[in-house]
């Protein structure tokens, strides 16, 4: 399937090789045959999107790939990207009973990707939308939460319209995934496959000044704006070449043909201990930077990033400096030389050709405050009702990274579905009012 979006041909992300390549038929069937097909399977219970894991794996074993895709996509229309990026070892595969049998757990994410790959290549939908209700929903942001919400709304017969500020849809799937997990091209192919069921996506549209109009023109609004820009590090010398925020770094790596690294980069520092920091460190290491050091203020045990990602990063040669804080960025005639670091009560100097700041992302506070009656918590996340995803405003729902919870694609999908079903129940069914 071709995508109606243009990407530069020489993107840096294409320098990476896949960490977990797509299974061949024989590999997938062999792995699926290891599954015990548990009754009331724990993997299914731990999937945020509620995918019937045991059943789709069984279908792969029975060589019914089409049926496996249908089972996955029935619960998660972003099944392909989840197959590429889901941290299955902490979700479904983390509950696999084979672990207690001292056997390797089933590679659920890889099977997931295998099952749904055809959906990406042919874009054929398994489900048909209900009769049109004439109800319209505006979705802000074209990331996984909005896409899942829009798809569910469309199936229920409503008319979703997605507004995206950037020129490309897909949110972090397009701009922010580590390239060895999934490429921007695959992310866009998935968006296109979802769009084909009849979802309008308007890109390059900033709605921040049109919120009142949206509320007037649409029966409901879904906020799926995700996270904002990188939080800045306030130390002397921060401004200038060689220091870059992690979100900007990865977006450049994925979508631009400009060199992401200065020539002859020997040493790199990554500041932070979350999954974004780990991604950046692994990307640097995989690009061949000989010395990559993560500078983290606490210890490995307290890192918010996944333990398995840290292990993989270390295997790739990434160093972790614990109890370490940058106190000054050192430059010579403006050119980056390194950083002064306070590490375990000692002052040291670390040379660096590039420093990536990954200490978290700001939220879209200013934008979100413009939505009437939408309230934020102290982390500037949108406060939503747990059952419905509804904000303080009866007609505004939210989900994904802009709301509290796990910052994962599968969680965004679960949020989007939840909101779509609640909107349908509470606002959009005929005779239940609306705008």
């Amino acid at each position, binding site marked *: 399937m071709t995508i109606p979006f243009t990407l530069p041909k020489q993107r840096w992300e294409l320098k990476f090789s896949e960490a977990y390549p797509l299974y061949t038929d024989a590999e997938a*069937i*062999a792995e699926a*045959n*290891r599954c*015990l*097909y*548990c*009754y*009331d399977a*724990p993997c299914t219970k731990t999937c945020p999107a509620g995918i019937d894991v045991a059943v789709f794996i069984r279908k792969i*074993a029975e060589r019914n790939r089409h049926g496996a895709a249908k089972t996955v996509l029935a619960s998660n229309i972003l099944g392909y990207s989840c197959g590429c990026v889901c941290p299955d070892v902490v979700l479904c595969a983390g*509950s696999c*009973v*084979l672990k*207690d*049998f001292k056997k390797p757990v089933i590679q659920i994410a890889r099977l997931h990707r295998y099952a749904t790959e055809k959906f990406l290549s042919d874009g054929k939908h398994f489900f048909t939308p209900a009769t049109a209700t004439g109800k319209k929903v505006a979705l802000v942001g074209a990331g996984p939460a909005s896409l899942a919400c829009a798809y569910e709304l469309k199936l229920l017969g409503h008319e979703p319209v997605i507004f995206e500020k950037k020129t490309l849809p897909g949110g972090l799937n397009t701009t922010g995934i580590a390239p060895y997990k999934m490429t921007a091209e695959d992310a866009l192919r998935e968006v296109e496959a979802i769009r084909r069921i009849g979802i309008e996506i308007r890109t390059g549209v900033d709605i921040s000044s049109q919120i009142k109009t949206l509320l007037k023109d649409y029966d409901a609004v879904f906020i799926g704006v995700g996270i904002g820009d990188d939080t800045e590090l306030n130390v002397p010398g921060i401004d200038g070449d060689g220091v870059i925020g992690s979100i900007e770094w990865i977006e450049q790596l994925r979508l631009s043909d400009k060199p992401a690294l200065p020539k002859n980069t020997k040493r790199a520092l990554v500041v932070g201990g979350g999954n974004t920091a780990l991604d950046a460190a692994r990307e640097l290491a995989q690009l061949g930077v000989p010395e990559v050091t993560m500078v983290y203020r606490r210890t490995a045990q307290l890192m918010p990033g996944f333990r398995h990602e840290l292990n993989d990063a270390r295997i790739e040669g990434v160093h972790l400096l614990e109890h370490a804080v940058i106190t000054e960025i050192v430059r010579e005639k403006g050119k980056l030389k390194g950083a002064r670091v306070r590490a375990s009560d000692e002052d040291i100097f670390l040379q660096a050709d590039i420093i990536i700041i990954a200490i978290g992302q700001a939220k879209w506070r200013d934008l979100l405050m413009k939505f009437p009656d939408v309230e934020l918590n102290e982390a500037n996340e949108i406060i939503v009702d747990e059952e419905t995803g509804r904000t303080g405003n009866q007609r505004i729902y939210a989900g994904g990274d802009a709301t509290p919870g796990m910052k994962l694609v599968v969680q965004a999908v679960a949020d989007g579905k939840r909101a779509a079903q609640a909107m349908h129940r509470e606002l959009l069914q005929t005779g239940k009012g609306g705008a």
Partner: protein
Amino acid sequence: MAELSVNLAGIKSPNPFWLASAPPTNSAEQVMRAFDLGWGGVVWKTIGDPIVNVSSRLGSIDADGIRMVGLNNIELITDRPLNENLREIREVKKRFPDRAVVVSIMAESKDDWRELIRRSEDTGCDGLELNFGCPHGMCERGMGSAVGQEPKVIREITAWAREFASTPVIVKLTPNISDIVEPGRAATEGGAHALSLINTIKSLTGVDLDNFVPFPVVGGQSTPGGFCGPAVKPIALHMVSALAKDSKINIPISAIGGISTWRDAAEFMALGATNVQICTAVMHYGYRIIEQLTDGLSNYLDEHNMASAQELIGRAVPAVVDWGDLNLNYKVVADINQEKCIGCQLCIPACHDGAHQCIYPPGVEAKPGHTAPHAAEAAEKLADDPTYRVPWVDETDCVGCNLCAHVCPVPDCITMKQVETKKPRESWNERIAKGTTFIPGGLHDSPAS
């Protein structure tokens, strides 16, 4: 070290493991390599008038990714000239005088049988095996299973062979009949020195669903072949034991059918076989398995204080009885090891949908008055840990069918424990003898509505 040598109707071999008449015994080059590795004997691939084979020839079935649990073939007897085979058999016997070399033969007319037996025995072979079993290709020509399915013809041809042969005559039986005892008796009456079984079972292994042709595919067509390999072992075990138990059959048995390991071999010997013949396992893994076969059997015999393989023969035969002689008052119930269970809960749908509804997930309350030792404990553990998944058994409702133990993937996790019924041993046949067979609720007990 237990003595492994056996003697089948006068044919001696240093161990009970023979290669069955099949592709692994097609040529001297192969057989000599097998003997170098330690095989006790061979039955040469059936000789007779050479035939023409087709391509492909084998179909296979897998079980959840385990390859070749059953194999089907449409290959016929040897396609090599008779004299070439005879020359090679003579050479092999000369080089390996201590091994058993048996020639499998198949012919049509009485004269042909006479001539084939004479020329076979000229090689110095230790015995003959009459192929009355091949279920494809040869039977259409009045040979193979066409003979094995007619007790009268078996008796007659066996008698001819006895008349012409000076070495022991083994009759190889086909399982493609309704009762194996009939052909077994016919061969015995014809004068056979020993029986070998089973030959392959007539079968189709599958269908190519894209092209609508069964396997194995021969130019867009297929034909039923002979099924063998691990999947046929239970059928072969039954047939061997049925012949071993029959009072009119008093000749030794050479067992064939799905033997892959020393354990399989020991089971066949315990059910009455004097030795065993192996084919599919060698086609799968090669002659090298002989080391594991002899080593395994030898260790087993030592561990069970048996001085020779001879002592194993027939030890399980008395325990095979008619259903009517089983004890109706013996009861076992399922016991799930709480520590070993991994919580897959496969036993739950098996018991509820496929058996007698007595295994429950934690949290379900036991029926009043029922014996369910782990029900309360399971509920407590679930309260502490919502992911707790170890099921429990209602022993009052359990009929002891074993299904749960068979579906459980964890070795020794579900076992069957005996429960005291406080009733004396009683079989159905004993009830018949006493006239206490009436059970309420039957056709003649309840009035028609």
